[in-house]
């Protein structure tokens, strides 16, 4: 297997993860979607200096990992490419915001450092929550849930097709890199001089295949309207889950649990 095939295999693995069974997998996609959206909104709304308040929000993904049986390792492995990018966002904060905010022992810590850490944590939490949603919900049930929230059909179809086409493109890339390496043995990567034609070829080939795929959909009666598998219906346990999550998030947002706990211990 070359790198690309591995990537493709990983994409398939996401489907596999979503097809497993656990109390979380059994929830209605709508319940999971709503709670994830709310979670992200709440996490993002934390003040940039409120590191301790936000840290408690880690509880949600940790619990989900536990209950769904999705290994944390898998999550970090799959996110290894985007995670650093998201985390890099706050990297310059320490240079802008140098006013000391607190001291640990006798070392002053500037506001910039705290806000950098909190931005990183925000990114991490949101990514983990999104990953958990995708890892426990088949993509087309997720699309069905998005439709239920009245997202435009066009947009949802686009999402689904992108998810599928990424696979097609990686496959073409795999074949082409293999072909290239057979002609240029011992060379690492692809030489700069070949990038242009390589990219052009890749685009053409992916487009050809995407066209074929689209043709095959049309030939089977597709006219722009997907019949998503509805997934599990929204039942009482889903309502309970959604309301429970919402209550917990709001509580954690407006009551600083870490501080509360700290005070209890000190007292």
């Amino acid at each position, binding site marked *: 297997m070359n790198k690309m095939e591995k990537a*493709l*295999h990983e994409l*398939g693995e996401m*489907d*596999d993860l979503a*097809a497993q069974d656990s109390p979380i997998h059994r929830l209605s996609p709508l319940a999971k979607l709503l709670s994830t959206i709310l979670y992200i909104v709440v996490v993002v709304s934390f003040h940039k200096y409120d590191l301790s308040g936000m840290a408690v929000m880690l509880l949600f993904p940790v619990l989900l990992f536990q209950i769904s049986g999705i290994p944390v390792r898998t999550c970090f492995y799959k996110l290894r490419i985007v995670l650093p990018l998201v985390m890099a966002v706050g990297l310059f904060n320490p240079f802008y915001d140098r006013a000391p905010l607190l001291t640990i022992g006798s070392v002053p810590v500037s506001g910039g450092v705290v806000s950098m850490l909190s931005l990183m944590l925000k990114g991490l939490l949101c990514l983990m929550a999104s990953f958990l949603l995708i890892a426990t919900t*088949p*993509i*087309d049930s997720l699309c069905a849930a998005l439709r239920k929230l009245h997202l435009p059909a066009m947009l949802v179809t686009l999402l689904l097709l992108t998810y*599928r086409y990424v*696979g097609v493109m990686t*496959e073409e890339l795999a074949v082409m890199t293999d072909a290239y390496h057979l002609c240029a043995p011992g060379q690492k990567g692809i030489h700069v001089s070949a990038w242009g034609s390589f990219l052009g070829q890749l685009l053409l080939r992916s487009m050809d*295949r995407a066209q*074929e*795929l689209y*043709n*095959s*959909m*049309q*030939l*089977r*009666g*597709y*006219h722009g*309207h997907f*019949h998503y*598998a509805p997934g599990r219906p929204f039942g009482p346990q889903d309502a309970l889950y959604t309301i429970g999550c919402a209550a917990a998030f709001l509580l954690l947002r407006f009551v600083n649990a870490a501080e509360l706990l700290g005070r209890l211990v000190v007292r």
Partner: protein
Amino acid sequence: MIEFQHVSFSYEKGRSVIEDLSFRIERGESVGLIGANGAGKSTVMKLLLGLLSGEGKILVDGIEVNKASLPAVRRRLGFVLQNSDNQMFMPTVYEDMIFAPLNYGLSREEAERRVDDVLERLGLQELKYRHNHRISGGEKRMAAIATILAMEPEVILMDEPSAALDPYNRRIVINTICGLSQTKLITSHDLDMILDTCERVILLDRGRIVADGPADEILRNRELLEAHRMELPFCLAGR
């Protein structure tokens, strides 16, 4: 059932790929469309499906193929693509099979019943919930055929159904094709397979029909085949 009347087509101006093609296929016939690489076999399929449009007239079940009639025409035609990877795009075989019936307005229960019927008929029940990226090439080809059968088309079109299969899977596919009662149009340069599955053969070379007749006759005609860059079927080569 299918009729081509003086059909011509070219991808680029001045280089015609299909030239003045006329033939008729009756209901229930199984016809092999043979020819060397680049003879225009796939193009004929695409014209018939309305994926390409050229000059002349194409009729399916008496309906002329044009933009307005496409849904009605395509409803009658089931096309098994040459590359099954481009056909199976949903996560599981089941979801791919249910795709067309749902588009044609069946309820999920009816569609699922149909899927189960087809899988049972082909002895593929085991594939139902398998992931498309986890099944072998042979299984994928069979799944692609099952997907098309779930549409219950009147005509089955297959582009090189035995390509890239090992002998064992090729044999399974051939047996399956022989068991289908629909009108069939099959392109291939695997003449042994055509001999097994078709009673009539149309030989294409550079976009023209050079022979049309019983499979037994044409596939035994060494001079004819060799004149058009083909070889006798292995089983008739008399070695």
